[in-house]
């Protein structure tokens, strides 16, 4: 009986690991369920040429801007010296983190919560001595600030756009006038596309760079 149980467990476990490998290799159902995270080994699967940080801030009714992350009580830095918000690539946690800071602090009435992304080219991360080895120019770092989204103080989504690099990539594609004209020509005339009703339209509008179905939305602040 023990032997049969052990054999069953071995078979099931290896099947689970094997399914992860096949799913990952063929890119089939890789994100179908959270359990897939335990069988898909996609370490260091992505990268960007730009370093990114997130500033979670709130705008008071007086116009003063307040920092929400790191919170005033203490800062938790999970993998070095950065607060946890900087590791949220998808931005799913920003609202809860912001509301949590508001909940446990004294503050004036707030007008809105803002998520601002700061990005800079990674070459500026080189220390000065290594920079001098490779570059003739002096270091001239520049941060780009990009409003990714806003919430009401109650947590209702007001505005959301993709991150700065996705936006810049879309601009690079859209810099082709012929493609832009084709995209405009090929779209039916509807003021609002019924398929994009609800909040999802704010986040997933693949034609946004060419005007999009919801072009009344502000593209940038």
């Amino acid at each position, binding site marked *: 009986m023990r032997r049969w149980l*052990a054999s069953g*467990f*071995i078979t099931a*476990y*290896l099947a689970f*690991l094997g399914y*992860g*490998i096949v799913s990952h*290799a063929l*890119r089939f159902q890789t994100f*179908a*369920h*959270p359990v897939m995270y*335990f069988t898909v*080994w996609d370490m*260091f699967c*992505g990268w*960007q040429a730009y*370093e990114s940080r997130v500033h979670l*801030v709130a705008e008071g009714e007086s116009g003063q*801007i*307040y920092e929400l992350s790191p*919170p*005033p009580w*203490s800062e*938790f830095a999970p*993998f*070095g010296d*950065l607060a*946890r918000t900087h*590791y*949220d690539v998808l931005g799913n946690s920003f609202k*809860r*983190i912001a509301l*949590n800071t508001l909940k*446990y*602090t*004294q*503050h004036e009435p707030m007008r809105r919560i*803002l998520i601002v992304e700061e990005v800079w080219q*990674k*070459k500026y*991360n*080189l*220390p000065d001595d*290594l920079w001098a*080895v*490779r570059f*003739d*120019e002096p270091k001239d770092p*520049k941060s*780009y*600030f*990009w409003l990714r989204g806003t919430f009401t103080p109650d947590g209702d989504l007001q505005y959301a756009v993709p991150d700065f690099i996705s936006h*810049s*990539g879309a601009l*690079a*594609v859209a*810099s082709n006038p012929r493609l832009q004209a084709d995209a405009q020509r090929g779209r039916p005339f509807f003021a609002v596309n019924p398929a994009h009703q609800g909040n999802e339209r704010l986040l997933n509008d693949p034609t946004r760079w060419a005007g999009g179905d919801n072009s009344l939305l502000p593209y940038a*602040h």
Partner: protein
Amino acid sequence: MKLRWKQARQCLDEFFFSTETPFGLAMMRIALPLVMMTMVLPRWPYTRELYSLDGATAQLGMGYGYANFLPEFSGEIAVALNTLLLFAMGCVLIGWQTRISLLLCFVLYPYFALLDSISTLTKYSVITTHLLLLLSCSNCGALWSVDAWLANSKSPPRALPAVFPIWPRRLLQLLIGIIYFGAAITKMNTPTFLSGDQLQLWMLTHINFRHPLGEWLSLYPVLLKSMAYVTIVWEMTFVFLVWRGLWRPWVLAVGVIFHFMTTLTLGLFIFPMTCYTSYLAFVDEEDFLWTRNLVRGWIRQSSWIPRQAWTAFSARCGQLLGAPARWRQPAFVAFPMCALLAAVSGVGIEYWQDPFDVRRPEGMHELRPLTPEFAARLMSPAERIRDKDKFFAIDTGTILVGDLLADRRRVFNYGETMIAQCHLVPPHEDMWIECKILDSDNRLIDRAGNIALRESFRLNFEYAITRAIDPGDYSLVFETGGREVLRKRITVVDDKSTVAAH
């Protein structure tokens, strides 16, 4: 056919169901909670904030479309459960109620990790979860543990402690091989991995611990490209070569070096420690006994180890504790009592700690206002990426290896062909890039242009250094859309020894 099938089955039986004393797994049982402490202990004071309804969880399920994949509890319950996890880890370490403790860890550790996908859950927590599951199936508590001591009087002493089927260790070994195989598939699916671009930019990323060697290595993309090939070949072949023969020590040694290099070049600490712990699955009975004999021989020969004092101390402890049998029943009852006590103490300590500072005399914290200057920067209108940020660097040399300059230098001799390589980074649009050569008086000597498509990472310009150019200093000026972006100084000489010196 039937015979072959029988042989295959016999081999499989031998592979999974032969027996051994689980030395390797016992060592893993001791090492794993120590590694887990580095993840769980720093997060414990933030339990309420990271893992409870009173804080701001970030469930992994959200990203997969399962908003409420796991139940969330109030702060007190979350703290009690997280303290219970710490208690269970301690019990695994000393081997007290080992299997129950491992199962507790197997449930609680991934639960908390899944609740906080941004600062707790990583692939090393996934590997740890697998290790916990497989260890809980094994008899890793049969050695060097409280359980083993309590069970001591049950069976007569033998030359070797009890033996058990090997299949949990085999599954652990297969798991490690499959992880590397999956990681290799990831790299194959990432086109920029083999070109070295991904590694170069990861080594310049500042989101992990400091890694100065990585920053330095990012100056040598050819080296990174070579390392990328070695890594992918090693990861693909690990699962096939690690079992026996000459390859085994080599494959494992490369693994040890590989993970050590990830610490130096990427700033990873816990991931290598987790992997080293998992490598203990490759310690078999023979390896352990060989090492033990070696160490024992060394101890016998060394005069500075107080062997007699240690023997006396062990004997004294034995006298104080008495026969293990008298502790068996109290230990069984004490386990749930201690677990309960630990959980309640955890809740009490956390209350006293007041993680959000809401009970301090001056009341809750006030929000920190941003300086007007920084607030103005945050709220400034969005800008387009500057030209100079679309370029990574300009390199000059003469030899291309895999489209990367292998001999980066600035001094060139007559007869050589200089390659000026312009590194670009995405995102950038299709660009017309011009390379001009200016002499020391800023006079135009030559110019060439080419198109860099939006997916291009590199654009090469080749110049034959001929007698048409006088020896001296020159500047390479790179422009796009008529705007100067970067400059690079080079020197033309009429002397091979000068080139060699540079």
